[in-house]
């Protein structure tokens, strides 16, 4: 008996297996064929195959021993640019035995690096170009500094279109002998919207219940898996139930470790989708921006965000004509 997370089990090994991002895959395949790779930036939303594409490229370049010529770093896990620089130095210093004279370093979440760290990274990239090629992975390429961007070939990944995601999920379901209903498939798309990693994780969690996967099952699983439901919290606050809303907020921060900056980002996103008069949205956006600024100054996440929730409760009350 062996089980893995399906997102890993069904991760393509080679570029030829990649189901999506056709244009990108074609260009990468030409790199592999010519046995040369420039520094690259893979930018795009989560779950769209950036890391997979990088791993596949390495596989196609070096064959089965690709792991020896590949290093994965995650900017958000490494403490400071010095760690990155030291790791890169040791990794890049030793030449490869094969015919390809360079190794590949994947630097994930590169957009989380500060400007200074990126400047330092740029020098490291230049210094070791001969022996090491960088693939920077980011959600937003705009957060990568200009001088790095100009040295890299840019690749823009986009959310999977519905059909492509469906093909992939159906294939997994069939292989795992899971009964995936049509409305279950719909539900996964509604909830995960083209983020393949989340889609597959949802599928697997739903399958673990051992029942046919219907929309109902999907929603219940996703509900259980996402206690950090900012949308629900806003609704509760707008219902003028501040105390319950603050309780949810506290759980998110303390129990589930959600960062205040992530919560504020989500609130901002939700704000403009709320069913409230347009001028209110602008009013509230100003408060949201203020809170964001205060968090950056080092203020307490829960205290600041709950002041915002209290404003939402006030807004909800006034809109009901209270």
């Amino acid at each position, binding site marked *: 008996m062996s*089980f893995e997370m399906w997102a890993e089990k069904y991760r393509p090994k080679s570029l030829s297996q990649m189901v999506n991002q056709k244009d990108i895959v074609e260009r990468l395949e030409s790199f592999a064929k010519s046995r040369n790779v420039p520094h690259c930036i893979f930018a795009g939303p989560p779950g769209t195959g950036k890391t997979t594409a990088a791993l596949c490229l390495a596989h196609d370049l070096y064959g089965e021993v690709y792991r020896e010529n590949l290093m994965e770093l995650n900017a958000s896990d490494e403490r400071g640019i010095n760690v990155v620089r030291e790791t890169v130095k040791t990794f890049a210093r030793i030449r490869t035995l094969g015919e390809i004279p360079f190794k590949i370093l994947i630097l994930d979440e590169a957009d989380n690096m500060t400007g200074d760290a990126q400047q330092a990274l740029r020098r490291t990239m230049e210094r070791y170009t001969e022996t090491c090629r960088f693939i920077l992975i980011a959600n937003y390429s705009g957060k990568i500094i200009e001088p790095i961007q100009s040295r890299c070939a840019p690749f823009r990944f986009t959310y999977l279109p519905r059909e492509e995601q469906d093909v992939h999920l159906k294939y997994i379901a069939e292989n795992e002998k899971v009964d995936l209903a049509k409305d279950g498939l719909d539900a996964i798309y509604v909830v995960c919207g083209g983020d393949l990693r989340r889609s597959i*994780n949802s599928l697997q*969690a739903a399958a*673990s219940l051992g029942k046919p996967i219907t929309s109902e099952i999907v929603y219940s699983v996703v509900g259980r898996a996402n206690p950090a439901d900012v949308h629900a919290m806003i609704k509760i606050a707008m219902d003028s139930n*501040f105390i319950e809303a603050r309780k949810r907020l506290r759980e998110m921060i303390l129990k589930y470790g959600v960062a205040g900056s992530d919560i504020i980002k989500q609130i901002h996103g939700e704000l403009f989708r709320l069913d409230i008069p347009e001028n209110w949205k602008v009013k509230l956006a100003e408060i949201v921006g203020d809170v964001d600024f205060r968090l950056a100054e080092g203020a307490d996440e*829960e205290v600041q965000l709950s002041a915002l*929730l*209290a404003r939402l409760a006030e807004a909800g009350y006034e809109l009901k004509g209270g």
Partner: protein
Amino acid sequence: MYTAWTTKHKPKTVAEVVGNSEAISTLEKWLRSWERGIPRQQAAFLHGPPGVGKTVALEALARKLVMELIEKNASDYRTQEKISQFAGLASQYRGFFGKKRIILLDEMDGVYGNVDRGAIPAITKIIKNTRCPIILIANDFWDKKFVSFRDKKKYLIIEFKKPPASQVLKHLARICAEEDIFAEEEALKFIAQRSEGDVRSAVNDLQALAQGKKKLTYDDVSWLAYRDRKDVIFSVMRLVLYGKTCETAKQAVDLADVDLDMLFEWIYENTPHHFNVPSELAKAMEALATADLYRARIRKTNNWKLMRYAIDFMTAGVAMARDKSKPSGWVPFRFPQRIKTLSTSRAERGMKAEIGKKIKRRMHVSVAQAQKDVLPYMKVIFESNLQMAAGLTKWLCFDEEEVNYIAGGKRQAKAILKVMN
């Protein structure tokens, strides 16, 4: 003119001090040992609950031994410069009038560890070089920040205990005699018992009940409610949440016997339960957010002057938010919940980080992503499917504790591990 009886009838001699005679004689012996040169223990740490007579005993001893008591409060040794000021005092044995000196650092509880980072080390350094006895007083000796004082070779540690009710009673009787009040013994016994060994509060109660009277009967005192120590924070909360003027609300800070961060937590926890008009609640929460912003700036810049603004907003700011709000019925004040949650979740966060690292190793994601995008789904799997969970446990090399956490309980975890083997 109003004089607090706690001051007016403060014991003048060692014999008059209520209880703790053993502690006092230990302290006296140590103070006398300075006559023969500097002893190995260069400071004494007196600790015990509030109102049991730590300071009073020392004052009486100083009088007896004809020593000059130089008293410093927490606010005097908050900063490094202020500490160095009294370091000068400690370098001489005698004062201007030839009297031998004792330096007293009272209310050490007020030096809070994280903020006054430099204070404790600076104090220990002064003690090392002192030429006259230094005495530290605090309520909670076992507080983490005092850990460096636990070395019995270097510090004389003396615990003051709550004196028995019978001794408190004697003290109250003495005061009544001096005030020319006839008091029924039952009445005084009642006050003494209710005080739970806090002599100061017993005397305060006596004054409140008996001042201006010729006679104090049991009926006069029986209504006196059980004086729970929690009462203090509760009356503080009442001032902040229902104070009519800025001044009343701001008084809370002087009254509260907790530090400002803790006071903030109390106010922050309780405010929403005492406002029912949403716009007024929003104002109150905004005031707290503003106070918090000042706290952040203080942390960042070490500019303690800003504290007064933080205080303004967390007290007066909250009180003035009220216009029409009334709580629905009687709402009890509650202990800050998030302090409870914080301590339990710290261990949990460590566990989550370990799990995140294991997922990262296998799944090409960052630790944060693993926690956010993978772990929640894994939890669903572990709660619902033993086979799949067992397989994943093997694949990711989770240990038993981690399985416990992911499966959300020992029972489910056991079942998973059983399937695995």
